[in-house]
């Protein structure tokens, strides 16, 4: 049963989808039913953070012992993180449309997230501008670590210093205090775990495909 966590991911996400739409939620002004988006929007960022941490971990390991496998792992993990971030931006944008009345506002938290996505977009551009595989792997590992160190303050430090509409900024509590009751916790925590596991699953499948492609390519060369 070494794949128990994939089963767990499926169960938790099915539970999230079912309970997220059916369980009672507190009636709050403005938010109304959109509060259910909490089970989808917020876990995206959790999943993204964890998968990017994994990507940095593989990058550091790559710099210590360079193997193609570690490079593939860190690259695919970063790509999954970017995917999660984009879905997070999209769900957040929809949520903003129904609560703040606009798809996008000039808000530190939103801008921070968008810029962090740009930083990781630059990572993909960087990877595509090398022809030599070893050099590409080493330099993108270096940039990946550097990008993580500068992108994380954008998510977790800078928005807290300024006033913002978004919860979890300007000294607001993120979500725990006022908009989350015990019923919601029952769905929210499983949702976070489920989406995070799904991110790792995606990264694993993607890196297996990339590793197979590499193998096929090497066979063709030989």
């Amino acid at each position, binding site marked *: 049963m070494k794949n128990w966590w994939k089963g767990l991911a499926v169960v938790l996400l099915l539970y999230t989808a079912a309970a997220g739409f059916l369980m009672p939620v507190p009636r709050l002004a403005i938010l109304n039913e959109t509060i259910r988006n909490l089970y989808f929007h917020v876990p995206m960022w959790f999943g993204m953070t964890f998968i990017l941490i994994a990507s940095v971990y593989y990058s550091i390991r790559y*710099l210590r012992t360079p193997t193609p496998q570690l490079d593939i792992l860190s690259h695919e993990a970063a790509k999954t993180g970017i995917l999660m971030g984009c879905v997070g931006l999209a769900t957040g944008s929809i949520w903003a449309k129904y609560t703040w009345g606009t798809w996008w506002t000039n808000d*530190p938290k939103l801008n*921070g997230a968008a*810029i*962090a996505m*740009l*930083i990781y*977009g*630059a990572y993909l*551009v*960087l990877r595509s*501008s*090398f*022809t030599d595989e*070893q*050099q590409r792997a*080493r*330099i993108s*590992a*270096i*940039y990946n*670590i*550097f*990008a993580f*160190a*500068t992108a994380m*303050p*954008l998510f977790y*430090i*800078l928005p807290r*210093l*300024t006033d913002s509409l978004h919860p979890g900024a300007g000294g607001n509590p993120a979500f725990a205090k006022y908009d989350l009751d015990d019923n919601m916790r029952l769905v929210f925590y499983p949702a976070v775990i489920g989406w995070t596991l799904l991110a790792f699953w995606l990264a694993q499948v993607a890196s297996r495909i990339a590793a197979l492609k590499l193998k096929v390519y090497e066979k063709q060369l030989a």
Partner: protein
Amino acid sequence: MLKDFRLEWRQRAALNGMLLYVGSTVFVCFLSFSLKGGLPPAPAWNALFWIILLFSAVNAVAKGFLQESRGRMLYYYTLVPPQAVILAKIAYNALLLLGLALVGLALYVLVLGNPVQNTALFVGNVALGALGFASTLTLVSGIAAKAANSNTLMVVLGFPLMIPMLLLLIKVSKNALDGLEFEASQSSLLTLVALNLIVGAVSYLLFPFLWRS
């Protein structure tokens, strides 16, 4: 390390060009604003100043690694540890940017007026900005120099990384413009220092790996 710094200083071919670059950019800004017949309002003044600094920083630091020939890099490699090279580059770039920023500021104030009310805070902020830009861009230019289309890559990699710093810098300098008390910008300044330290430390740790290729 001091010797390394001197090595950098000796080939400061970029310096005069950069001074001219900053000077002409400021002058172009002055000309475009004087068409309207007046000085820009304080927020525009602030934003324009940082945009000028941003572009001249990218141009100035990009010279550092891109102009380095392969042979000379090998020569350094035999002489000094990589940590000394990156520290010397950061120090040199920081001083270069600081000089550029101060000359630019002087020219800027000369032609576009001086709405700054808290000069000490503003200049301190500019100094922090120069240090931050230098430590971010030095490693980025090292990375970009390895790739094929380095000039584009330098901008693509550098700008998003600099934005968090730039946001804080603009906020603090806006405070300095409005003459707010030091306490109002204290937390932002501390975050800036912390961000500089993080970026500097990460460059210091990562450069030896970059260097080997």
